[in-house]
């Protein structure tokens, strides 16, 4: 609890000032400076045994876009993310990143931090460098990534002594350290408490903005999706049922009327389809 408060307070205290700074930062970037990779998916299908999880996904994500994928449990959203990240192989269809992506270009962050308990925080971040682990500037890059997530003072700690939010920030630093051009998030904040979630959402938005990668966020939390993403995809029964643009300028005020309205309409769609299939 002490931890949650400590890194929430600096954000919460001078509200006006941070908002102003954020405004300036977020306004500075246009889509043309993105170093992310575009993503094109055609006719993607995946079954596990009899169960067809994805039934033909067609999707184009422009470079640098922040896309959230929502849907009920078992709708196939996590499978789609795992396919994009190359953790599963598809039964049919293609996924392409525009140009040839190196393995270091696509990174995933999971709901669990998946840190090596026997490696100090800094070596855990170095794991993220992939083939560059042995290079001479590995430590420097890892330190930079830790600073990026605000944990440079924890570099020598064991993961076991960190709080849940801190562990997840180390995992984020590990994903960021190779300067990925596509970052896939599989419910990265699902296991965190409400306050930590909010500050982590801000952190995600900030690093996405600073590093300009293409972000794909799978979440069951519609309010998180509309708060962070440029575009929300609703997946139902293995297909993209809705593709909603979130045209609300950043920084977004949590709890503002237009965010709430959009969240409400997406939730209605989800509930409607739930009533139709009536398996709730």
């Amino acid at each position, binding site marked *: 609890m002490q931890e949650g408060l400590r890194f929430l307070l600096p954000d919460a205290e001078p509200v006006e000032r941070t908002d102003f700074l954020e405004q300036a930062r977020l306004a500075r970037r246009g889509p043309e400076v993105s170093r992310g990779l575009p993503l094109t998916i055609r006719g993607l299908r995946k079954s596990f045994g009899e169960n067809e999880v994805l039934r033909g996904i067609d999707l184009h994500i422009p470079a640098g876009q922040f896309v959230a994928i929502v849907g009920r449990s078992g709708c196939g959203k996590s499978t789609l993310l795992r396919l994009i*990240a190359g*953790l599963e192989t598809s039964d049919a269809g293609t996924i392409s990143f525009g140009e040839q992506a190196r*393995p*270091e270009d696509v*990174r*995933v962050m*999971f709901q*669990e931090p*998946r840190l*090596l*308990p*026997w*490696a100090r925080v800094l070596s855990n971040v170095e*794991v*993220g*460098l*992939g*083939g560059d682990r042995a290079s001479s500037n590995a430590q420097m890059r890892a330190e930079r990534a830790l600073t990026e997530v605000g944990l440079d003072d924890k570099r020598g700690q*064991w*993961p*076991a*002594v960190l709080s849940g939010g801190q562990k997840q920030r180390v995992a984020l630093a*590990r994903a960021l350290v190779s300067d990925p051009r596509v970052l896939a998030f599989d419910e990265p904040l699902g296991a965190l408490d409400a306050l930590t979630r909010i500050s982590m959402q801000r952190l995600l938005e900030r690093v996405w903005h600073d590093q300009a990668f293409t972000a794909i966020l799978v979440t069951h939390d519609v309010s998180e999706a509309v708060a962070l993403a440029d575009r929300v995809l609703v997946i139902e029964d293995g297909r993209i049922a809705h593709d909603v643009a979130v045209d609300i300028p950043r920084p977004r005020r949590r709890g503002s009327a237009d965010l709430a309205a959009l969240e409400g309409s997406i939730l209605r769609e989800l509930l409607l389809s739930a009533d139709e299939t009536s398996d709730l």
Partner: protein
Amino acid sequence: MSLIENLPRVRGLRLPRADGLIPWIVPLGILLVWQLACVTGFVPARVLPAPSDVALAGWKLLMSGELVRNIWVSFWRASVGFLIGGSIGFAFGLANGLSQLSSKLTDTTLQMVRNIPHLALIPLVILWFGIDESAKLFLVALGVFFPIYLNTLHGIRTVDPQLIEMGRIYGMTDGELFRRVIFPGALPSIFVGVRFALGIMWLTLIVAETIAASSGLGYMAMQAREFMLIDVVVLSILIYALLGKLADSASRVLERLTLSWHPAFQKH
């Protein structure tokens, strides 16, 4: 005093010096009661000699060099047997934990052999090796093999698959994956095996030395029995206790050094 005192708790007030002494209160108390019982004649010296007599016998044997020689011989047998059996067990544990083929090929056989009490092989071993060194080494190695094999195998099989997936995502080669994820993950379980094995190591060695040997602690005890030197018999038993405790402490130190990341070993 509550029953859950041993569970992890918030650090309280501690007296480090007293803390180190507490484990020795009971053994020292027993010695004291024992001495009193012998001195007052409550226990006849033919049944149990007084601790002071045992110490005296120890001193004599120490002076003659016999004690050191026998301890050294036993220690040498124990460690060589442990190293041989432990290495083979570790190697099989690794192979069967990492390779399906190896596991299918050998695990069933090993599980069958495991169920034979290894001390039951003593007659056979004497027929094979006589009362040579190799007989003792063979028995110790066999006894040590199984706890290390089983716990290495278990440790490797229970490494968090999510961590292995993470390692693969981040482009670890098989070698790196083993070195950075699988081996450190299996280490706590391997140490459990080592501590079990140390216990079995002494047990096996003493039995083997008692039955068929011409040197070593077990032999010393058996010879003392022949000559009715009960103080030497008791002395040998006490030395076993001490050596067992020493081996256990050594493995604990090693554990603390290599598992410092583990929450159970963290000093606050």
